């Protein structure tokens, strides 16, 4: 891990009325790291990213991003970061190229550099052919790709991605993962990503923080986190006849952590499943059972999440509605 810190967060808290969206959160991200925030919707991911990208002021605590404190020098921080917000924010009335070019001008980039950079990035995200079409004619996936490219136009030191593939089809998601990885190979850029997709965190991130109800539950690399689970694989044995003797013998094995029975299947959490599968089968046979089939699957972040939070990723956030927006009167006024 590199020595220099790209992001340093300490004791960060953000409350909206009585709701604590981010609760005393502290963590560091090193330069060049691909860091992920994994949590269910409503866990506080977007609030956190909005504080780190200067759109919200923290209630207490602080964060240093790239160079400076986000609350004290937001304008300096904005120079150093690129952000792809969760909502689609490209301008529908402009072409893809115009979106990129005008964004570059917001950062005061000279014309020549903008042109080169825009050309390179549009090519990277595969939009060169559609560069001069209005964004209104783009698909959701294309729009998102454009927005990621736009967030990179001024060569930011840190790229913030808030749920970059939310609501996209699997193919678009793969596509975006593909060029994010390609990007990481080229630039030594720090990436901060939030997601509630396990596969995404696992596929892209070097280190992950699991966040739930505004608090960080655990931080580590995907491998580390999975390593902290009791066992690392699940084995399912299908046998002709399950006996108490069989269950007792299996549970006594040193590498078995947990077992459960379902019809004629016995499911066990084990350490290094591939090595221990033969031993498990031998033990089953020695109790007189006939093993019909066996399967191993590696434990995933989903198992990690369930282990640490006691629940799986779901639950929707109650969206704060302004008084003036279409929706509303405060809840206390009745339905």
């Amino acid at each position, binding site marked *: 891990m590199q020595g220099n810190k790209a992001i340093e967060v300490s004791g960060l808290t953000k409350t909206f009325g009585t709701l604590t969206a981010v609760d005393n959160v502290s963590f560091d991200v090193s330069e060049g790291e691909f860091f992920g925030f994994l949590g269910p919707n409503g866990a506080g991911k977007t609030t956190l990213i*909005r504080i780190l990208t200067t759109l919200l002021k923290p209630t207490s605590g602080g964060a240093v991003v790239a160079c400076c404190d986000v609350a004290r020098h937001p304008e300096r921080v904005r120079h150093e970061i690129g952000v792809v917000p969760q909502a689609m924010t490209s301008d529908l009335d402009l072409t893809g190229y115009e979106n990129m070019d005008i*964004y570059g001008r917001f950062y005061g980039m000279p014309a020549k550099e903008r042109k080169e950079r825009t050309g390179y990035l549009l090519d990277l995200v595969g939009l060169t052919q559609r560069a001069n079409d209005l964004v209104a004619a783009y698909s959701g996936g294309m729009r998102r790709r454009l927005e990621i490219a736009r967030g990179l136009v001024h060569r930011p030191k840190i790229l913030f991605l808030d749920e970059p593939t939310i609501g996209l089809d699997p193919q678009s998601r793969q596509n975006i993962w593909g060029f994010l990885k390609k990007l990481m190979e080229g630039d030594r850029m720090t990436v901060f990503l939030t997601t509630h997709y396990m596969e995404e965190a696992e596929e892209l991130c070097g280190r992950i923080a699991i966040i739930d109800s505004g608090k960080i539950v655990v931080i580590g690399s995907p491998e580390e986190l999975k390593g902290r689970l009791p066992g690392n694989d699940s084995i399912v044995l299908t046998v002709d006849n399950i006996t108490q003797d069989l269950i007792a013998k299996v549970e006594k094995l040193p590498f078995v952590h947990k077992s459960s029975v379902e019809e004629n299947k016995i499911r066990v959490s084990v350490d290094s499943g591939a090595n221990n599968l033969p031993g498990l089968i031998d033990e089953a046979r020695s109790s007189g059972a006939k093993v019909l089939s066996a399967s191993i699957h590696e434990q995933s972040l989903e198992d990690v999440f369930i282990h640490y939070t006691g629940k799986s990723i779901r639950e929707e956030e109650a969206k704060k509605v302004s008084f003036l927006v279409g929706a509303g009167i405060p809840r206390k006024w009745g339905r």
Partner: protein
Amino acid sequence: MTRLLAVIERDLKKFRRNPVVLAMSVLMPLIYLIIIGNSFQGKLKALPVVVVDQDTGPHSGRVVENLQAVAAGPGTITIIRMKDQQEALSGVREGSYKAALIIPSDFSKNVARKSRPSVGLFLDNTDGISSETIRITVEGAVRASGTEYVSVREAAGEVRMRDVNLYSKVDYYQSLVPGVVIMAIFLGAMTTGAFNLVMDRFLGIDESYLLTPLSKAHIVSGLIISGLFITTLIAFFILIVSMLITGISFSAEPGQWVAIFAVITLTTLGLLSMMFVIIGRVNHPRIVGILSGFLNVILFFPSGAIYPVASFPGWLKSFALVNPEAYAVDALKSILFKGAALSSVSHDIAYLFMFTLIMMIVAIFAFKRTV
């Protein structure tokens, strides 16, 4: 039936959950009643008329008495007595009074001799409705004095003797042109500038530029300047076309075009900045739509564009004192119909400038750069 009820219920629920829309639907008709009811009264009131009685004879005294009876009774006019004819006429020219009645020193003598007595009525005929009302009122007062041979000589043109074109009568149709131009500016200011910010916020696009190093001043003044460009173009187009439609022939000197340009530009800037102050934090276009109707009523009708400010009740008159549209209408009327030069409308321009400056500062200050 269930389906129909479901559609109705869905719609009613949405309506009930929009407190601003709900409040405005109740308030708007009442505001229309109060504002239009007071700015468009059936009968005009308190039109300021200067009376210069150089005669002070028995017959002129009766004319003045009759006029005072009108002022005290129906209150159509307010009488201001003056000794100096020149002072009275320049007061009309500057717009302080709507008309000046000059009773010459030989009036009573001529009435007695029945040798064609005459009075001079100098009318500010740029305001068609009030000048016609004054003409009828004064004519009535003079006739009722029993001097049936008196002919009222309208000398509207003499008020503006410098320019021959201005002798031409300004009809009601033409007198609406300044108001229409100001209306165009209002609509332009409403649909550009801050409205684009509201739309960006509604679509969630604002986040993309709030995340960049753009400052508050960049965002606010950038949107104001682009709105200024579009709106002034529209306003000039409307001015030229409406002058052609209503047949205003106006050959302005360069200085007057500068004055028109200054008035249109400053009014646009002022209204654009004011919109930022008012709707700068709104996040739904529907609210802008409602506010637009509301603001139009409270700014346009009390501006003097249709009915003279002099006839407004006191509270509405004081509102006209701060209403930027009232200054803009006054300035455009003076330039277009009285041939006023830049210097004659400098007080209007000074007010518009101050209004714009204050609104712009408040707009930048009030703009929230966080989500």
